[in-house]
């Protein structure tokens, strides 16, 4: 005698969700940013402030720094980059896996700031593409949080087509 399986009893009102694939991927990515802090100068103080308890970037899923570029997807360039250091920054950027984003934290990383001289690189966007610039010398933690939220919005709105030009 064959036992018929008991009819399925829904355990809750919602059993499954429907969403769009692009939104789902964007939602997952935007809350799992692993920053690589490329910290060279005094903006580091503000970076510590924004990472620690009072402002707490962990609320945005972007707190746990990975000190190897291979495990990170958000490069935060915090402070002045000199010409002597530019090859190191480029190497770190090239070691990061896709998808990756870059934040220029503070005015020196964005444009060189007031270091208009022989030593300073006049903005990291001369050598690597930058997604978000946070101005300020140094930026307030609120501005950094605002910047991270803007980057999250942008990540959430990215398209991930199944059929690409290479398909």
């Amino acid at each position, binding site marked *: 005698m064959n036992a018929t399986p008991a009819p399925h009893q829904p355990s809750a009102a919602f059993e499954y969700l429907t969403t769009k694939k692009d939104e789902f991927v964007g939602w997952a990515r935007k809350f799992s940013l692993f920053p690589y802090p490329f910290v060279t100068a005094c903006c580091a103080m503000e970076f510590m402030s924004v990472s620690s308890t009072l402002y707490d970037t962990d609320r945005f899923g972007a707190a746990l720094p990975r000190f190897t570029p291979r495990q990170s997807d958000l490069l935060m360039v915090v402070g002045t980059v000199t*010409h002597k250091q*530019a090859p190191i920054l*480029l190497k770190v950027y090239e070691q990061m896996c896709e998808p990756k984003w870059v934040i220029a934290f503070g005015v020196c990383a964005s444009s060189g700031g007031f270091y*208009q*001289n022989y030593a300073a*690189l006049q903005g990291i966007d*001369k050598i*690597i*593409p930058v997604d978000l610039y946070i101005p300020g010398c140094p930026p307030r933690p609120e501005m950094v949080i605002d910047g991270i939220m803007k980057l999250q919005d942008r990540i959430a709105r990215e398209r991930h087509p199944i059929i690409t030009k290479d398909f």
Partner: protein
Amino acid sequence: MSDEVFETVRAGLAGQVQEAAVAHGILALTLEPASLGDAARRLKESFGFDMLLDVTAVDWPEREPRFDVVHHFYSTQHRVRVRVKTRVPESDPTVDTLVPLYGSARYMERECHEMYGIRFRGNEDLRPLLLYEGFVGHPLRKDYPKQQEQPLVPYRK
């Protein structure tokens, strides 16, 4: 107390000093380039200036000779400083090295050499210290263009 020390130094180096003045509590002496090594030895051995604080230069573009090479000495015994300036021309910006007297001169002369192009006779190791290989020119000279860049990485676009 510092006045007595300054007076002793000034009297002791009287044959070599061109100008002497006390500025901001420091005795500032101007010497001929040729007498720098001898004056430094006497400062160290006779007057107790046992510490070399700084080696740098000043660029006066309109003046001839163009550069001041500036050494700062400190006496841990008397707790006073002496500043020694030597004037060197652009065509031959050379002074004697102080490395045999003060080991700390080694790095400071390297920095002075890369930033101003001053040569230190007797210091064989004048490789760039802060600048990178292949840097052309001396960036702290007044005729170095302020916004000239010598990037190591090719720029995008």
